[in-house]
């Protein structure tokens, strides 16, 4: 009975996605020839695989470096984590694109030196190798991993580190050999989610990625939204290719893990202490920390500037400003925000409950949790929408939001949940506590920081849903995001920027509140506390 109950959320999650997937498989019939013949298919696949893998590897390395060495800027970065996490991917991408554009502020600063009277004809945004896309992903995913690492880094790991510090290793190596393997075990699933996200992202890929060809995920969306409506089959076939590509990447990642483990063993065998490594690594970590602060902040400020910018003739350093766009935007926001908030709260609460139920057991079915993360939404959502027709719009939309929030909640909770020391439960049980009491009074409170972080992530995920909201509600539930995406196809950059910032507001509050749940170490341990 219990086994059935704990598997139920997984099945509930998988059913609609599987049904949507089935629709995709059926639709793809007859379109495979066209899909294989897609111009630049191999490059599109590479533009999905390489930035995804590279960004995950770099983000994880930077997370480790910053946690190990706590370089200058760490505190500031931790304080800003909530804001960076709340910033939608598309908003960060827009800000970065504007920063780097030949008509952007950097080009304006150097224009007098270069004698530019007009924006230089340089391909800075959308480079053919996807470097800009990789950078954008790193900037967005490192804060995500840092947040989860801070939540998962319990006192047990800190004690280990203290003991290890007596062996005389350098801090970086000590972290890599002692703490990182244990921490990584708790973070593994979110790391894989980051990898899958980086490969399937549409909004970042469309803004920062190249267009000839675009990353595979963007090509899927292009096919699905083709004006002649004939691209459904092609989109389905490409999406199934994308699915295989993600599977390949996950397999490659296992190789990366094995390589890292082998490297660690080799270092131990050689008796490396890495004492001299700390100084150069610290310089690198410092650079990383400040970049992680400065670039998103610059992107965010530019976005804010855009809200009040009418026009910015080149090479002026100051744009023509006006509050008029802001005045037009603000009155429209409250009803949109109300819908976003209601959906976010309800779907996160439901998803949290389902995730906790699912975590009461272990099962092979857990692999199903990956489906909504690695499948491009545009492929299986129309299928689900078809199944949900007739269901009242609010419930249908809520169900879809739960479908997308649940995997993220489960993945961010599973590690810390399973790392919880079961002996505490045994002790409590010998003292006469019932299983329910142990859950409610012991385990959940001890995991409060992770629960809070997961809740905030759920709210961010729900707030960011565009296609799910539009298709499920039949347009009956306009949210900040549906409005923002609709406007992003239009000419008014000020409005686009305003909506992108408004979209960030709800998750920002959620992350800020989550941060108060003893999320971050009360005081990052400075060098003084360590030998």
């Amino acid at each position, binding site marked *: 009975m219990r086994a059935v109950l704990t598997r139920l959320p997984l099945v509930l999650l998988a059913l609609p996605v599987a049904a949507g997937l089935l629709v995709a498989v059926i639709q793809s019939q007859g379109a495979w020839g066209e899909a294989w013949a897609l111009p630049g298919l191999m490059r599109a696949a590479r533009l999905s695989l390489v930035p995804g893998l590279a960004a995950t590897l770099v983000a994880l390395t930077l997370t480790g470096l910053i946690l190990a060495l706590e370089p200058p800027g760490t505190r500031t970065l931790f304080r800003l984590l909530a804001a960076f996490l709340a910033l939608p991917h598309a908003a960060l991408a827009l800000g970065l694109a504007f920063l780097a554009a030949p008509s952007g502020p950097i080009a304006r600063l150097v224009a007098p030196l270069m004698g530019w009277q*007009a924006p230089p004809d340089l391909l800075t945004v959308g480079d*053919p190798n996807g470097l800009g896309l990789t950078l954008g992903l790193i900037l967005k995913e490192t804060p995500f991993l840092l947040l989860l690492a801070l939540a998962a880094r319990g006192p047990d790991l800190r004690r280990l580190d203290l003991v290890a510090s007596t062996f005389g290793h350098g801090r970086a190596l000590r972290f890599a050999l002692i703490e990182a393997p244990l921490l990584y075990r708790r973070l593994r699933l979110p790391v894989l989610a980051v990898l899958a996200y980086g490969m399937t992202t549409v909004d970042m890929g469309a803004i920062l990625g190249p*267009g000839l060809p675009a990353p595979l995920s963007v090509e899927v969306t292009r096919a699905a939204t083709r004006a002649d*409506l004939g691209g459904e089959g092609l989109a389905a076939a490409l999406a199934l290719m994308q699915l295989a590509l993600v599977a390949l990447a996950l397999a490659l990642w296992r190789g990366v893990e094995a390589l890292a483990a082998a490297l660690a063993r080799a270092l131990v065998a050689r008796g490396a202490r890495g004492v001299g490594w700390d100084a150069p690594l610290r310089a690198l970590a410092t650079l990383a920390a400040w970049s992680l602060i400065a670039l998103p902040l610059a992107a965010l400020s530019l976005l804010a500037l855009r809200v009040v910018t009418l026009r*910015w003739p080149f090479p002026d350093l100051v744009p023509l400003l006006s509050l*008029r766009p802001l005045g037009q935007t603000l009155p429209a926001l409250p009803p949109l925000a109300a819908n976003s908030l209601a959906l976010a709260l309800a779907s996160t609460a439901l998803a949290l409950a389902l995730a906790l139920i699912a975590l009461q057991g272990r099962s092979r079915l857990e692999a199903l949790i990956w489906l909504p993360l690695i499948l491009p939404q545009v492929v299986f959502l129309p299928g689900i929408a078809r199944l949900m*027709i007739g269901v009242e719009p609010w419930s249908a939309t809520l169900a879809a939001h739960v479908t997308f929030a649940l995997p993220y909640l489960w993945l961010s909770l599973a590690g810390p949940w399973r790392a919880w020391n079961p002996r505490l439960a045994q002790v409590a049980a010998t003292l006469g506590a019932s299983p329910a009491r142990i859950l409610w009074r012991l385990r959940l409170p001890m995991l409060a920081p992770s629960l809070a972080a997961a809740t905030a992530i759920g709210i961010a995920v729900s707030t960011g849903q565009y296609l799910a909201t539009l298709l499920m509600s039949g*347009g009956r539930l306009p949210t900040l995001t549906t409005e923002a995406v609709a406007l992003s196809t239009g000419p008014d950059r000020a409005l686009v920027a305003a909506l992108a910032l408004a979209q960030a507001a709800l998750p920002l509050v959620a992350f800020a509140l989550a941060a108060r749940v003893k999320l971050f170490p009360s005081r990052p341990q400075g060098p003084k506390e360590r030998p």
Partner: protein
Amino acid sequence: MNRRQTLALLAALLPARAFAQTWDLLDRARGQEVFFHAWGGDPKINDFIAWLGEEAAALGITLTHVKLAATADAVARVRAEKAAGATKGAVDLIWINGENFAAMKAEGLLFGPFAESLPNWPLVDTRGKPATVTDFTLPTEGYESPWAMAQLVFEHDSAQTEAPRSILALADWAKANPGRFTYPQPPDYLGLTFLKQVLYALLPDPAILQSPWVEGAEAPLWPFLDALHPHLWRQGRAFPRDEPALGQLLAEGETLISFAFNPGRASAEIAAGRLAETVRTFVLEGGTIGNASFVAIPFNASAPEGAQVVANLILSPKVQARAQDATVLGFQTVLDVASLPEADRALFEALPLGPATLSPADLGPVLLEPHASWMAAVSGAWTRRYGAG
């Protein structure tokens, strides 16, 4: 003026109560909520639809704008509803044209015919503006009702450059001004419209554009583009995504010549303060491609009566004149202004043209949209040639 026209005019002029006696649909539509699925990218258009909602409210109809990023999103919904056998659909009215319309009509997803029985239909200039009844060579047959005319116009910053008046002159201009011209990446419709305009200039017999595409018919296009691309923005290694992205390049001074499908776009953007005051529009010798935007009603609309009343409202001189106002939308009307009664004609004559808009006479001849098969063929071939980088 025949009796039907008179009735229609009376209907448009009289207060709602009296109108109801001439068109019983009004009574059945009263109290309905009409969900209008329309592209929501442009705040000017969104504001206009909100204003239209106030007009509809006077007729007892609640008009709700569902803002789409792409019309295909709404078509996908209707299609899914048909597959599921849903009778009370989510979409009542949809802003549509071209391939989306062709697909919906072919799949039986549309309600109608209804357009030609609308009381305001006789005001439509079907003879002078054949695009109001022919959507990309496909006869509309009353399954969609026109709401605005669009025509390709080019835009240039008159402070910095002259206007080349033909496609070949434009190519020479691009050579002389490297990096200052580009077009949206196909399959974007505006990018394809540019390519179709090029075809009009290059084909020995442009009349073949009105028949279905045959293998190789577009051949003259490729040597022309091969020669043009190295002189485009980013040397043709990247293209803007869509019309707004193209307009943004002009606004930021990255390009000096641009184009749009709304002859009033430049004026409206100048009025909004987003475009340099020196931008002007021009058309090409021999004419530019034009088409119409329509509204259609899905087969399973929950409020088909209300949707028809709104479609009719859109054809009223008051609404059409407001849409043509350069400070509002700058869309060209679908009505035959010359044959409107004095008071209605005055509405149009009083409209300011805006600093950058050409007068209807200066807009020149309208070239018909090629058969829809050209779009798919050119788009596919373009992607095969240039899409792999």
